[in-house]
């Protein structure tokens, strides 16, 4: 999952990014002014945007308004320093999905981020099960046929994305867009490498029953569509 933080207090943004990366294995991009934030939000398919309201150049609400006007459905969590209810109402009415008032609890922010992303992919239940695989997005516990499976951060990141989109064909380009932050060096064959290690841990055997390859299009978790 890939998250954009638009926050002009660089240290706060870095702390949030660090916490999100460590706890949720999200890929995080940071933008410290409104203009750059808007550009990034428009150019990459983020799974969540954490948006401060008081930003240099372009205000947070303006960015939100433009994103929604362009038809962008990315979930947006507003960070506000003012404890003003009318401002919160305005932000929610303009298309944001959630809000937090500064100073906030890091744990709460992370939990809200997870919940927002879960719902975006149509899984209100934190535990997602598909074909004998059970993935708890809150605790990051993965079990396959009842056995716990230990995964690296990158492996988990990939599996979570594929599982949340179970039943859909996921292209390699989508995987790269959603799992790597802007600064990461990515090579297209990295995806194949992680898919093969995941298969080794979860889906050994000549016939892949969990992660299917759809030739020329991408990957699919769960039942193959007819």
């Amino acid at each position: 999952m890939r998250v954009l933080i638009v926050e002009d207090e660089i240290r706060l943004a870095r702390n949030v990014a660090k916490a999100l990366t460590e706890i949720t294995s999200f890929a995080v991009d940071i933008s410290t002014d409104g203009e750059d934030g808007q550009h990034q939000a428009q150019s990459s398919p983020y799974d969540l945007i954490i948006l401060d309201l008081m930003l240099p150049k372009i205000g947070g609400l303006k960015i939100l308004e433009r994103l929604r006007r362009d038809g962008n459905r990315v979930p947006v969590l507003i960070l506000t320093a003012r404890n003003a209810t009318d401002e919160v109402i305005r932000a929610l009415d303009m298309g944001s999905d959630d809000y937090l008032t500064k100073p906030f609890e890091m744990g709460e922010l992370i939990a809200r981020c997870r919940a927002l992303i879960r719902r975006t992919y149509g899984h209100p239940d934190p535990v997602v099960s598909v074909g004998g695989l059970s993935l708890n997005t809150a605790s990051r516990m993965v079990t396959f046929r009842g056995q716990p499976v230990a995964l690296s951060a990158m492996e988990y990141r990939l599996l979570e994305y594929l599982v949340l989109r179970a039943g859909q064909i996921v292209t390699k380009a989508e995987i790269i867009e959603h799992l790597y932050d802007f600064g990461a060096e990515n090579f297209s064959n990295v995806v194949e490498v992680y898919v093969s290690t995941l298969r080794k841990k979860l889906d050994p055997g000549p016939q892949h029953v969990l992660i299917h390859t759809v030739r020329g299009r991408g990957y699919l978790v769960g039942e193959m569509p007819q």
Partner: protein
Amino acid sequence: MSPMSIKLRLSLLVSLIAVAVILTVSIVAYVELEESLMDNVDDVLGAMGEGVVAALGEDEDSQNRVTALQSIVGRKDVRDPAWYRIWTDDGDQDLFASELPDDPYRELFLHPPIDKRPREGESSFFNLISSRDPDKKGACRAIWIRRFFGQEVVNVLVGRSSHYVYHELSEFYDLLLALGGGLTLLVFLLVPVFVSWGLNPITQASARLRTITHKSIGQQNSSGAEAPPELRPFVGALEGMLARLDKAMRQQEQFVADAAHELRTPVTIIKSTLQTARLKHRTSDEYEQDIDETLEDIGHLERLIGQLLSLAGFQARNEPTKPTEVRLDILLDGVVGIFDALAARQGGRVVLAEATCTSVTGDEDNLRQLFNNLIDNAVRHGPARGTVLVTLDTGPDSQVTVTVHDEGGHIPPEVLPHLFERFYRVDSSRSKASGGSGLGLAIAREIVLRHDGDITITSDPGAGTSVVVHLPRSRCQAPACSSRSSPNS
């Protein structure tokens, strides 16, 4: 003891006046009635007396005279019976006398009060009222005539019952009592009502004042026109006061809100740093870095609190703490020296143009803070390796002008007026890059205003940005200058 209410005072005053008027009118009416009734009786009595005297003068025999006298004085059975006695000064016996009334009036007829005795040839009217007849049932009005008949002085006393008069008077008295009492009662009942009505505007005003809270204080207007003319200045003054209070309170609220907002930012960063550090075990290097960052943010918090306190302190105090003669040239030289040393590390310069001996009256600490803030601002907002030029001019007028000029970029003209507002920043966000809190210029303006000066800022893309401070020049500068050496010498 609480003071008497205006309503009670006015009611009492008006009621007392009304009662006094009722009482006076009643007494006058009573006296007038009594007089006029007595006059009527006296007219009849006078005529009777003259008749009796005339009858005495006629030469008739005694029996005829008695008949004549009887016909004059009238019959006994009429409503107002009359009696008479005629005697000489010398004689012991009455010459003529009618049947006299019963006691106690018989006695009064036989011995009329001697002080009522008229002189010879004259007559007097008086009342015959016995102390043993409190109801005045037998009271009489009498005329006493003394005339010379030959050598003798003849006394004629004619009395006529005045019971009717007293009856009338007592009826009138009862009427007055009922009427006056009723009126008085009415006055006591109605006056408070009228006074309340008259005081209604004040009652309404106080009722409105009672509803004013710190939240609704600004919504009290457009009611001055409703007040009666006498109250309008009062209401106007009150409204003015409320408006001023409202403005002050709004500023205070804004200040508190801004301050809370400003304090929240470093607290949020510190909290996020520490919470992130606690997410998992880290190396001691990582912990040290987190501690250093936290300390740095706490330092920012401390500076912010200090500035907020000094700003709040300026607003709480009205007068500069200790106005003294301050040598501005020496003060500026010191401040510029410190900032020049700091700026030199980044390759910049802070220069004080040649300054002549100048002093102003004020608080030296405040003035130092003023120029600290201005020069600090210029260094931070000017270009790297730029020069900040500070000039001190004493014009021909009684003003001292200090200009702090940097080579910084253009500040849009529309934001210039806002620069001295608290927490105002040009980019509408926290400018952590330059480290400002948004309070430096606000504090500077407070200090300048407290020294009866003014402060302006101009910005031009070509020329840079200049902050100009005007301060009133101290009147007695010569001794201060001669006693100290110039900083440039």
